[in-house]
């Protein structure tokens, strides 16, 4: 059975895996974005809190994904919970760091002007600082998504959802008829998904970054 025949015969299962992979990455990204921006907003004004947030999240990233999921299994069990927790944690770093860098990079004279014309602190954050920091934050979200695409594959180790199942099954049965096809289908599926997500981010950037600050 060649690769195309394999795709043709298993397309239903493949689509489900792809959909679940995309879905878990997307949902974890939403949570990671909300959390990451929140952490950034809370910490960027203080030198040490900001640095602590960046260091903590980058330390998380140095833990190998397999080890992280392995460590989570005894605590939260198998399946979806360890996958979601691990992905969200890994997704935080680029977002937190870019959010802090972006917010700190806003021209202080603009912050001064915003306060000077009578904006309250939440208004200033929502109307001036976050919109101006949005391009770097969006870049962070993009980098995070790319990263999570790959890491999500490892979630299959904890019986999580997604294309990782195909890859693991293929690796486990190397030498059998469909092993290579399975690994190939899983990997290509992830690449295609990553490209699609990236295209979506380009579109989101077009729609959400105001013309006045678009590069």
């Amino acid at each position, binding site marked *: 059975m060649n690769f195309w025949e394999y795709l043709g015969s298993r397309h239903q299962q493949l689509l489900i895996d792809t959909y679940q992979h995309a879905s878990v990455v997307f949902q974890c990204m939403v949570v990671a974005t909300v959390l990451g921006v929140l952490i950034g907003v809370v910490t960027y004004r203080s030198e040490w809190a900001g640095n602590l947030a960046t260091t903590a999240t980058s330390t998380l990233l140095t833990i190998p994904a397999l080890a992280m999921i392995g460590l989570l299994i005894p605590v939260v069990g198998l399946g979806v919970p360890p996958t979601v927790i691990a992905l969200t944690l890994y997704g935080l770093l680029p977002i937190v760091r870019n959010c802090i860098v972006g917010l700190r990079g806003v021209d202080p004279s603009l912050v*001064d002007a915003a306060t*000077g*014309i*009578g904006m309250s602190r939440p208004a200033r954050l929502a*109307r001036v600082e976050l919109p101006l920091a949005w391009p770097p934050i969006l870049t962070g979200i993009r980098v995070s998504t790319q990263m999570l695409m790959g890491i999500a594959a490892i979630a299959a180790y904890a019986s999580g959802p997604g294309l990782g199942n195909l890859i693991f099954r293929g690796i486990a049965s190397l030498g059998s008829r469909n092993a290579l096809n399975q690994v190939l289908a899983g990997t290509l599926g992830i690449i295609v998904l990553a490209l699609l997500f990236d295209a979506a981010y380009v579109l989101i950037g077009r729609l959400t970054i105001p013309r006045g600050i678009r590069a």
Partner: protein
Amino acid sequence: MPEPPVPDAGTPGTGPRSVGATIELEALTKRYPGSALPAVESVTLDIRAGETVILVGPSGCGKSTLLKMINRLIEPTGGRIRIGGEDVTDMDPVRLRRTIGYAIQASGLFPHMTVAQNVALVPKMLRWPAARVRARVEEMLDLVGLDPAEFHGRYPRQLSGGQQQRVGVARALAADPPVLLMDEPFGAVDPITRDHLQDELIRLQRELHKTIVFVTHDFDEAIKIGDRIAVLRERSHIAQFDTPEAILTHPADDFVSGFVGAGAALKRLNLTRVRDIGISDCPTVSVDDPHQHIVDKLRSGGTDEVLLLDKRGSPYKWLRRGDLMRAGGSLARAGTPVHDTVTRDATLRDALEAVLTDSTGRVAVTGRRGAYEGVVDVETLMNSVHELLEADRLEAREAQADIEEQRAAQTHAEQEGFFGGEAKT
């Protein structure tokens, strides 16, 4: 003088435009934790309604800090602030700032908002109805000399530095605040644009009569714009607070005269306009006059020079006796062309400049559409400058005498009080 109460300024439905409010600073102090000396030490300053006051001083003297304490961007550690008679030292700072215009260096426009969105910010925060905000934005852009139709939807980066600064002023004035604070607003634009912006500000202020507090380190800018100038030394101590004329002609001490710099008499020329001194007449002829008439005029006139006007009545050439003959009778080739003219609104400095560069030792004054009105010559200029300086000196001496008298009376009273107090114990 009735002052508009500050919190009401700019709320929807207030009838006439608000004019300036008084600003009283009383022993205002800013002390940063960890530094031995305060950044601003006990500044007391009374600013009249509708007046333009310039805070000028060397960098690091705390003039910006002093300004930012007025809208409490920097919270004072001591003293009181009163605007329009109302104590605002403990008022909600966000509400306070919406009633005070604020314009800063490099405009401070938000790059992700269009010109219209930037200008509309404060009125929107004050919850003006949408239609009123829209109308106000157009009005403000018009006021600062930008065509609303053209600039409305532009982003700040699509504007020149001078245009950005205009929009910055429009935004500061949008909610019609009685008080306008300007922190080196023209510091980041080129000298020619800065000159234009200064002229514009003077024009605006003639229309609006806001109370403006303006920070700069450029003394020439201070003289040009200010009704009164506060020269600040370190820790914002007021070295002198007076009219530009008084500071130029009678600096309070060495610090002020050092800051005024060389050429105080020359700078004085910036304060007087051609309309304030006499314009003399001079014989003129027109290019349309018959040739013989021009020749007669040149021969008969008391002067040996006539001014030739072109078809529209603008100064064209200076003609001397003999010029015509040397040019073989041709008007087109005879005489020396007029290089430079001044209007009645030009400063004496401009006039002097023109006189000095023109070989004839005088400059033609023009009115509407460049039509000839008269001339100013070197002697007139010299005489008026002498008179001006003399008058200034006299005034300053009187003012000085007044101050000394007051001081003497005060000391006297204190001494009496002191002895009186001792007698009681």
